[in-house]
């Protein structure tokens, strides 16, 4: 079975600082990878998805970017954080042609 790792678990960053969140997947190959954001008390919003190395699709224009340098690694970045970037960031995966999505433990980001 697949395992999804995310780090860091929590992060407090000042406005204007850079960001790098990492997601890695074990137990599968060539997965589809997804970044979601959940604002406090809200549902999830799809930010980016990737079907392969170097292939990134953006769902919502914003100051965030994503990269997939390796098959099972997905990175979420920002050059300058905004207050509105605070939230709970979740990485998810599907693999093997299946549609069921599995989520990592998430990273809680607070921008001050």
């Amino acid at each position, binding site marked *: 079975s697949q395992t999804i790792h995310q780090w860091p678990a929590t992060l407090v960053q000042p406005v204007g600082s850079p960001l790098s969140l990492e997601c890695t997947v074990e137990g599968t190959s060539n997965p589809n990878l*997804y970044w979601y954001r959940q604002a406090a008390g809200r549902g999830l919003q799809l930010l980016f998805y990737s079907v392969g190395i170097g292939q990134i699709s953006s*769902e919502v224009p914003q100051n965030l970017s994503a990269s997939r340098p390796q098959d099972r690694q997905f990175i979420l970045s920002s050059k300058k954080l905004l207050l509105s970037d605070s939230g709970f960031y979740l990485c998810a995966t599907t693999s093997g042609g299946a549609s069921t999505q*599995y989520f990592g433990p998430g990273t809680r980001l607070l921008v001050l």
Partner: protein
Amino acid sequence: GIQVEQSPPDLILQEGANSTLRCNFSDSVNNLQWFHQNPWGQLINLFYIPSGTKQNGRLSATTVATERYSLLYISSSQTTDSGVYFCAAGYNNNDMRFGAGTRLTVKP
């Protein structure tokens, strides 16, 4: 894009009670999933159910695709069932839209 609405927004039950959560979606979808988010934030996939009925222990789900709704049934609820239940719908996995969730509290 697809709109997903869940009801009720909040639900409080006594342990042992049954409940039904509803998810309405605005268009025909090929992908519908139910998730449970525990108090620590972990999302667990409960069902992939674009149509039909499935059961897993005390949980079952039914999706009537032609009428654009899905129901999640929880029987004999336990305190560990507490958390937020999300429905997500889309044409495929790359455009899933989540509802706002139903927050369930099960009291002992």
